[in-house]
């Protein structure tokens, strides 16, 4: 049994992504936490933004990757694409949850509340619910082919829905009651932008690295189960022969 050529490629290159992520995140964290000045308005609190913003960007990037993977799966029906989709969905859920969590930690000192029904917060929450629904759906389907197909359908429908959700929530907040708390328009100076760039690139690389490792894991798991099944059936056949 040979290992899929895509997996071979991934095995060869994943180290670069992991190393690049460690380097970028290291530089970014140093610049963000120590090298850059505190914000004029927000003080030291602003430093969590160096984690929060890249997490949020990566979460959205992950959902786009999930959608492309899902379309690809429905088109080609290649199980390895589904392994990638499954891996990216779990990562996307984790990144979305972390983005929400760090946003709440930032909101407490800045807005003086853990939670507000702000448009962006609300649409991110809905995104998280869709992703959790996706992961739950997959555990409830017995047939792996059906599991992949149903997951892909949900991901694509969710992708179409997300802009409409964001749009409707934004209208609802702005029309319904004037937003009591809103993000102050912080014009970003270069001192803040450089660490943010490092962190964003680093987070995307980290995401890619984790995606590669997890896809590989799911692929090998599938291979192992297939092999196990074959061995078992051979064993039973040989027993019934004798």
């Amino acid at each position, binding site marked *: 049994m040979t290992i899929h050529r895509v997996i071979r490629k991934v095995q060869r290159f994943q180290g670069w992504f992991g190393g690049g992520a460690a380097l970028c995140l290291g530089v970014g964290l140093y610049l963000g936490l120590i090298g850059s000045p505190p914000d004029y308005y927000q003080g030291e609190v602003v430093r969590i933004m160096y984690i929060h913003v890249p997490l949020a960007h990566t979460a959205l990037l992950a959902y786009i990757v999930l959608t492309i993977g899902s379309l690809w799966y429905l088109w080609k029906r290649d199980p390895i694409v589904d392994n990638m989709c499954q891996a990216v969905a779990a990562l996307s859920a984790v990144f979305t949850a972390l983005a929400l969590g760090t946003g709440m930690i930032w909101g407490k000192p800045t807005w003086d509340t853990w939670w507000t029904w702000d448009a962006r917060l609300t649409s991110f929450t809905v995104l998280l619910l869709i992703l959790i629904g996706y992961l739950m*759906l997959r555990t409830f*389907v017995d047939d792996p082919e059906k599991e992949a*197909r149903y997951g892909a*359908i949900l991901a694509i*429908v969710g992708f*179409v829905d997300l802009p409409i959700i964001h749009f409707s*929530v934004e209208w609802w907040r702005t029309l319904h009651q004037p937003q009591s708390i809103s993000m102050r328009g912080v014009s970003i100076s270069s001192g803040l932008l450089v660490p943010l760039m490092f962190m964003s690139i680093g987070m995307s690389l980290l995401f890619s690295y984790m995606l590669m490792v997890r896809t590989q894991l799911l692929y090998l798991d599938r291979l192992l189960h297939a092999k196990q099944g074959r061995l078992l059936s051979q064993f039973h056949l040989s027993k019934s022969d004798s």
Partner: protein
Amino acid sequence: MTSFNVIRWIVWKDFVTELRSRETISSMVFFALIVILIFSFSFSMDQQAAREVIAGIMWVAFAFTGIIGLGKSFSTELQNDCLEALQMVPEAKGAIYLGKVAANFAFMFVVEILLFPMFVILFNLEVVEEISLLLLIFFLATVGLSAIGTLFSALTVQIRAREVMLPILLLPLVVPVMIAAVEATKGALNGDPLALYEQWLKLLAVYDVVFTVVSFWMFEFVMDS
């Protein structure tokens, strides 16, 4: 058999089944009545407060009863392997989808029409002038709910824990419908000028078109086996 005939037969079949068993609509109506009852316990409402929250209560009741109807739509097809029979229909699968959407829409809309007078009586609403506008809101929102709901009804019918998974998957996706329907209904009940909530009607219309098309397309993949 043309695709149009497939749609017609599916609608006809669902109507006849419903007329003979009277399962779906009656269970939807009674469930909605219980929801209304629970809500009136949980908020002690005078007429002023009722105006503020009634649109929300109404759409929570409609959405939950809609999910009951949607869930039944395909789970009844499991008996006698009717689902396999549907999958063997030689016409495009989209025809089955449109038939099911039409039937589900009709059931939900009938239930909403039956329930609305109860809301009017129980919460002392005055709606004589806005009745046609409210019907339009009900129509648009119900098209949206049934368009995406039918897809997920078909998708969840063949998995474990389908009664739980249908609302879990469906409710986050219909957030725009719920917001738009509640805001528009609130506007209409308060007698606000149409210009204030016109955009919600437009949003509902856009949602209906987008998700009828997307679900129509995705339904092919749900049904292929």
